[in-house]
Structure formats: C-alpha cells, structure tokens
C-alpha cells in the first residue's frame, strides 16, 4: 500500500516539525496543568486521609486549616469521651504560618494522647522533634531556604531544623512538625488545640457518632476522614478548576488550530493531487482517510513529544521551584491522548470539506 498520507506529511519536514511542535506545546501545557492540579488535590487531602482515626473534630465553621484556624478548648477532649461510640480522641495542633522565607507553612504538632506515636508516624515522621527543633518537609525547607542544623523563624520564635523529611505530609507538602509544647506556646494558648482525631468503637457507625458529637459537644463539627478530605479538595476544585479548565481549553484550541492549519494548507497545496485521485477513481472516503491519517500522525507525534517533554520539564521545574509539585497519573495521559485524538478529528473537518468540493475535472486544466 502506498503510504500517501505519510508522503504528503513528510514532503515538507519543516511544516511537519512546526505542526508537531505546536501540538506538543499544547500537550505539554495540558499535561503540566493536570499534574499540578492532581498534585494539589492529592496533597490537600493527604492529611485528612492519612490520620489513623475515623473522625476529625474541629471548631464549627473552620474545616479548612489553610484559611481558618480551628481552636477548641482542652475541655472538648473530655466532652468527646462522654459521647457514645467514641473510643479515643487524640488532639492535634495546627496553624498556617510563615516559615522562614516561605510565605506559607502548615505548622503542626501532636500532643500527648491515646495514639500520639501512631499519629506522628501516620504523618510521615519517625518520632516527634525535640523541644526547640522542627522537622520540615522537603518542599518547605527548600522554600524557606534552610537545611538541617539551620535556624528557621516560625512566627516570633526561632527553631533549629532537626530534619528535612521527604515523607512528611501536610497541606501542599509545606509542613513543619514541632514539639507540642513549642507549638502550644507559638499558637498562644496552651489550653487549646486545633483538631481532635477520634477513633470510634468497633461496633459504632462513624457517621452516627459524628452526628452525636455535633449534638453533644457544642461548637464542633465532626467529619469522617473522607468528608474532611472532600471539604479540603472542594475549595481547590471550586477555586481552581474553572481556571484550569480555561487554560486546558485554550491549549486544546491552540493544538487544534495548529493541526487544522497544517492539514488545511497541505490540502490546499495538493488540490490538484486530490483532483487526480478523484479522477482515477478514489472515493470521497478514501480521500478523507488520507486527510485524517495526516491529522492523526501530526497529533500523535505532538502527543508523544509533548507528553515526554511534559515529564522532563516537570521534573526540572520541581527541582527549580520547590512548591511546584506534580503528580503524573496514567489516567491523565489517557485523557490527553483522547483530547489529542479529538483535536485531530475536529481539525480535519474543514480540510475534508475542501477535498469533498474539489472538482476532478481540474485535472484537464493545464
């Protein structure tokens, strides 16, 4: 079989390179935006999902630790013990604060409680830091410009960096783990904590216990880990998803325009060829297939190039900008592939109409 589509495409290699490059740029943009978004979504819910508890209890109306501090009096811990179905309640201190040069860090501490060690381990630290020291997540340490042994300012206090951890989780991977007394002092109220992590009895239903907590302990909200994660993600989804959708849409249009222009100009240049093929018996579908194949080849070449570059550029950006964390998922690559194939199909609409309208009698014109 004569590879007509391939010959047409490769007859002008510069145009092919520009077209594939244009699609690759669109793909790169989409891949990076999606990876960035997924990373945000993943990180924002990490803390809620990782906690070794069934429920999160917080001050009413403060479910987002990045934007509102939950402050609960220590008496709430004993009140929780009175609620039927509550097996144990572990306090957690957390506050969004400036850490060194970083504008935002999620500072937390796990005070003594029924499952203090388990909670610290679940959040990615081997043990609590010594008094006067801090464990920083890798991203926050890079952002703050400090390393192990350095001093870093958090609020009005200074702490020595005991460890930079790649496994410490929190909000947006910018976490700092303090000794609980240091944290209580830093937050300004030793008689209060931020969240209670509640484990329910084996025979109790977490949702029913949550409802009972909200009834019996005034001023609290109780959410399951999944609900808490969803609340945290909701803000990102509501705030960023429309923006991301617009950027992805624009990238899609850029890719579409590049393919459409390339295929259209190629088709116009080869009007006579298509006329000859019609004259010698090519059916419209056979000619459409030639056009569509060219479009698919450009799209796939752009996809492979763009997806590959996306991963490489993403890694470089992550190294250069610590807060630029990415999560590449195979589902997103499949989504982009589908988008690129849709691009290639839509891009052929005008060229196909052009081919359909070519009068085969032009072959008799000198």
């Amino acid at each position, binding site marked *: *079989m004569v590879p007509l589509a391939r*010959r047409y495409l490769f007859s002008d290699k510069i145009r092919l390179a520009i077209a594939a490059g244009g699609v690759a740029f669109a793909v790169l943009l989409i891949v990076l935006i999606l990876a960035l978004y997924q990373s945000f979504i993943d990180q924002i819910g990490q803390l809620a999902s990782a906690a070794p508890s069934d429920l999160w209890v917080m001050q009413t109306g403060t479910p987002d630790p990045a934007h509102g501090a939950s402050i609960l009096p220590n008496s709430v811990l004993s009140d929780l013990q009175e609620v039927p179905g509550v097996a144990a309640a572990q306090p957690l201190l957390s506050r969004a604060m400036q850490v060194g040069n970083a504008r935002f860090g999620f500072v937390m501490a796990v005070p003594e409680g029924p499952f203090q060690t388990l909670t610290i381990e679940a959040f990615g630290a081997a043990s609590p830091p010594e008094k006067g020291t801090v464990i920083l997540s890798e991203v926050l340490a890079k952002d703050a410009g400090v390393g192990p042994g350095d001093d870093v300012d958090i609020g009005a206090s200074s702490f020595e960096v005991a460890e930079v951890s790649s496994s410490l989780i929190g909000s947006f991977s910018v976490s700092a783990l303090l000794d609980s007394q240091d944290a209580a002092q830093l937050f300004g109220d030793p008689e209060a904590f931020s969240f209670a992590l509640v484990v329910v009895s084996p025979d109790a239903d977490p949702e029913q216990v949550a409802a009972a907590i909200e009834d019996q302990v005034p001023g609290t909200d109780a959410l399951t880990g999944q609900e808490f994660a969803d609340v945290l993600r909701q803000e990102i989804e509501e705030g960023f998803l429309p923006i991301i959708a617009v950027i992805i849409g624009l990238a899609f249009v850029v890719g579409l325009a590049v393919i459409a222009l390339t295929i259209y100009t190629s088709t116009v240049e080869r009007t006579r060829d298509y006329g000859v093929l019609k004259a*010698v*018996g090519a059916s419209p579908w056979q000619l459409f297939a030639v056009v569509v194949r060219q479009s698919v080849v450009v799209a796939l070449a752009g996809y492979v190039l763009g997806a590959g570059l996306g991963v490489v550029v993403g890694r470089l950006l992550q190294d250069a900008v610590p807060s630029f964390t990415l999560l590449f998922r195979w589902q997103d690559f499949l989504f982009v592939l589908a988008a690129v194939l849709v691009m290639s199909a839509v891009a052929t609409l005008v060229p196909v109409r052009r081919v359909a309208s070519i*009068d085969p*009698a032009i072959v008799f014109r000198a």
Partner: protein
Amino acid sequence: MGAQAVETRAAEIVLEVRGLTKVFGSGDAAFTAVDGIDLTVRRGELVIIMGPSGSGKTTLLTLIGSLLKPTSGTVHINGLDVTAMKESALPEVRRHSVGFIFQSYNLLESLTAVENVEVVLNLAGGGGRTDAVKAEQLLTDLGMGHRLHFKPRDLSGGEKQRVSVARGLANDPELILADEPTANLDSKHGPEIVLLLRAVAKELGRAAVVVSHDARIQELADRILWLEDGRFKDNPGLAVAPAEEKTTEV
C-alpha cells in the same frame, strides 16, 4: 445482418455516446460547449478527436470520463449508462472501466514512478506486494524498468507520460481517454506515446479516445473526428474523416 453478427458487434462496443450536450451557464450567458454528440468506439480502435482550441474536445472527454454531468444525452461504457448513475457510484466506474492520460501528466510529485501506478491499484481495493509487482511490471513493459523509483521531477516529459500511461492501464480499463498526450513532448516522444496507445488498443483489445491538436499523430488513428463548436464536422484536410460520425454511430 444475422442476430449473431449484431450481438458480436454490440459486444465489441466499448463506448457509446448519444446526443451528448453540455451547456454552461444559463439565459443569455448560456454557452454550449458540446452539442448533441454521437460517438461509438469499439474494442481495438484508436480514435483521435481533433479541433481548434475551444471546440469542446476536453469537455467532451470530461463528460465521457464521467467527471462532468452532461446537460443531456447519454454515455454508455461497456453497456453501462454512466450518465444515469449516482455520483457515489462513479468512482467505481473510473477505477475499473476508464483509464485517463493527461496532457500535463498529473503525476503525484510526492510519489515515485512505481508508486504513482501502484496507488491506482490500491484505490481499486488491492494492497500489499501484488500491486507493487503489477505496477513494476507495467512500467517495465513500457520501458521504464530503470526509472521505477524516480520521482516525477527527475523524469523527462516522455518518461512522465509513460508513467501516466501505465497508471491509466493499471486497472485494465476497457476505455482509455487521453487528453493531448503529446502536447508537452517532442517530435520523437509524441508519436511514440500514441503508438503505445495504439498497441494497447490493438493487442490488449481496449478502446482509446485521444483528444489532440497534434497533426504528427494523425496517421496513427483508425479514425479521426473533427470537432468544432461542440459538433463533429467534416474537415477535408484530415486524412481520415468518417462523415457519419457527426450524425450517428460509425
């Protein structure tokens, strides 16, 4: 004439044109390019249609090749009324029943000589090595065996026209339509191409209709028809001018 003789005669007819008319435009601007043409061409025949520029030669060829719908009249190819066929059915006719040879060769510049022939075989539903072998054989038979993998830009005019002939013959059409096939060729290669078409008509039993201005090829025709103002007319200057063509069949 006996019944058997009539049947044999009818079977020999490859092209039958009746009352073929093409009018471009309408009203005062109407222009009749082809005006009530009747023409019959049989297997083994090489017919050359001559005439001045603008006489309707190419329009006639375009109508016969089903690339243009006539205003009225019929064209039968191998007994099939192509003027009554739907547009969607015509590619099949062009693939299998008609072979075109063009004045400006119309080779696909991105393809090699052999691919230009092979692509027509592919369109007819072929594929794989068989088509390539057939294309190579056709070109070799036409003396192009040494230029199989050359692009058109690297071929001479005569060589390009041979490739065009090979492409026209690729799907074994019964009818070959050639539009000014010698126009861009010198005095040696021009007649060579028409000799080739004549040989194809005689040896392979095809019918060939050649439209041309070229007086050098007159002697190679079985019949020469003179077209003027869209009609066949007598031309005493022509060596062969069967007067009956201008009204009914030969």
